[in-house]
């Protein structure tokens, strides 16, 4: 039996590779996927590493099937992952909604490329920010994380599994082509240093188990198939026994509870990084690879005597309303830099509640936003 291959010495890793290391460290033992640029390295590495650990890899016939397969595997108690990019992420939406509504933990990686449609497969973009939130139909909660370094990709992949297990919900790990393909020297933590969270299991006798018991907390304990609990899971509106229901009070209670469990957990889910924002008169809001350019722009502006700071959301959804609101009440201008036409700028405007003016630096041509472009905007608004 091969041991978990987490090495503590420094290695030169790609974001996609760090994601695989994080998934394995978190306990992921099932991967289903379909080839797509720029995420395919994740599938290839999982195909190599999982069987060494007794885990399973399968390349499915399409993206829809991959999403379905990880939900099925998770229902047997196995932590499961799929990875894709824009067109594939579009295809996964229906079953993502299924996982959300039926409360099946799983992690979906979306390494963003230029869209819409086939777009530009090998170039970075951040155009799926709102699709991550609202891509599947109906009211549903979502957790989405977005690293900007290779090391952080490892950490957030572990976090994605932990949050998914703790809240019984699918978690989306966003990257962009730059984060996915960029190589950095990183030192990964030893396995024993990594906190692992597993889904809450049933504590009642088999005959008394209710798969959606909402009487003891917002996250019902989850049994696995094949353990004798004999429970039913459906994407229809369901009651606490897991059976289809048409009772308005049951339907309402379920949808409100799955939102509430995330809302109540907001304090543990939502994370941001602040860089020089304490005395800032101008704020920059940026995430993923764009935040790297933004951090450079902030330092360049500071060297020119401009008081500017960076707010980098690590959690995209739920949106960090409080952090934005606090910064907006302190700065004269808040610049949002992103590789789309203002998807998060809309959210920043909403959260700022008119406390400051919002400016945008947007690019959708498959090229990174440079520090100079952001610096130019900072100097413009001073």
């Amino acid at each position, binding site marked *: *039996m*091969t041991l978990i291959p987490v090495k503590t010495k420094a290695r030169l890793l790609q974001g996609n590779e760090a994601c695989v290391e994080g998934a394995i460290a978190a306990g992921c*033992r*099932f991967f*289903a996927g379909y080839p797509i640029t720029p995420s395919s390295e994740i599938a290839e590495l999982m195909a*190599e590493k999982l*069987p*060494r650990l*007794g885990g*399973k890899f*399968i390349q*499915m*016939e*399409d993206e*829809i*099937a*991959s999403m*379905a*397969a*990880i*939900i*099925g*595997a*998770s*229902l*047997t108690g*196995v932590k*499961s992952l799929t990875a894709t990019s824009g067109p594939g992420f579009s295809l996964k939406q*229906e*079953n993502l909604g*299924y996982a959300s509504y039926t409360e099946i933990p799983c992690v979906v990686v979306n390494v963003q490329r230029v869209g819409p449609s086939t777009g530009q497969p090998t170039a970075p973009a951040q155009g799926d920010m709102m699709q991550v939130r609202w891509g599947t139909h109906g009211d549903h909660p979502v957790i989405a994380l977005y690293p900007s370094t290779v090391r952080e990709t490892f950490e957030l992949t572990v976090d994605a599994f932990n949050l998914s297990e703790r809240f019984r919900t699918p978690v989306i790990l966003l990257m962009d082509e730059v984060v996915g393909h960029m190589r950095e020297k990183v030192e990964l933590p030893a396995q024993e240093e990594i906190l692992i969270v597993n889904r809450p299991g049933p504590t009642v006798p088999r005959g008394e188990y209710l798969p959606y018991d909402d009487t003891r907390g917002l996250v019902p304990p989850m049994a696995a*198939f*094949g*353990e*004798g*609990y*004999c*429970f*039913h*899971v*459906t*994407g*229809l509106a369901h009651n606490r026994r897991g*059976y*289809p229901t048409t009772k308005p009070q049951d339907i309402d209670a379920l949808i409100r509870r799955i939102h509430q469990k995330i809302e109540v957990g907001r304090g543990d889910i939502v994370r941001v990084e602040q860089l020089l924002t304490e005395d800032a008169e101008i704020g920059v809001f940026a995430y993923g690879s764009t935040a790297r350019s933004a951090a450079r722009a902030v330092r360049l502006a500071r060297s020119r005597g401009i008081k500017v700071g960076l707010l980098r959301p690590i959690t995209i959804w739920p949106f960090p309303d409080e952090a934005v609101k606090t910064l907006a009440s302190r700065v004269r201008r808040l610049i949002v830099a992103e590789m789309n036409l203002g998807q998060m700028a809309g959210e920043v405007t909403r959260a700022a509640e008119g406390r400051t003016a919002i400016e945008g630096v947007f690019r959708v041509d498959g090229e990174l936003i440079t520090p100079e472009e952001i610096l130019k905007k900072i100097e413009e608004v001073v």
Partner: protein
Amino acid sequence: MAAVTWHRHLRVERMPQIWCAGCGHGTILGAILRGVEKSEIDPSKLVIVSGIGCSSRAPGYVALDGLHTTHGRALPFATGIKVARPDLTVMVISGDGDLSAIGGNHFIHAARRNLDITVVCFNNSIYGMTSGQYSPLTPRDAMATTAPYGHIERPFDLCQLAIGAGATYVARGTAYHAGLVTNQVTRALKHKGFAFIDAISQCPTYYGRRNRMKTGVEMMKAQRDTAVNVKRAAKMPAEELAGKIIIGDIHVSQASEYTEEYQRVIDRAQGRT
């Protein structure tokens, strides 16, 4: 006479079920549960997976682990379960539209992998839940709400499709021949590999009434009168077989099964072979 024991697999408290009077689905579900009982497999290790449609509501009436998934996707959900836990027995219940239209791609690929799953298609030649639109199994010239001037497409032969795609146990029965379906389910569950049963059902409400067969009884008589056992069919001339349904065990073969093959991958990756 042996005591009736298969009733223990029904969730009687969920009755009455949603199926119309005269529908063949209850008959086929009963045949499946008798087959499960006869197979003597451990019911706590059996998972039933379905998609969307009238037949896909079946797992909700069964006291086993049950997964009612999205339209057409029962097989990839079932694939995840079986690959993650090969020790579980996995059965898929699907309708003709669910399995062969929206889910057609998954059907051929699960068969190609020879994954050890039993699939029972409740084949009533129509989309019943959405009120009678034509399916890939609707016969040519039949009437449907989306074929108000008669249907112009040729239907699939699901058994031939399954054989072509690599299934290793392929059978057909009907609601009229429920005893045959029971025995086929028992054989399918014991078969190592992808097992497919085309179980012809009847939808008097949305197919029969529009096609000069007003009741379920009339439709079951048609099943009786048009069915020919595969052994007898082998000796009949082609012209006599026109318009007949061939029932029985149509194809049985042995081939390497997916989860056993994957175990060999694990052994190789771990340096054991």
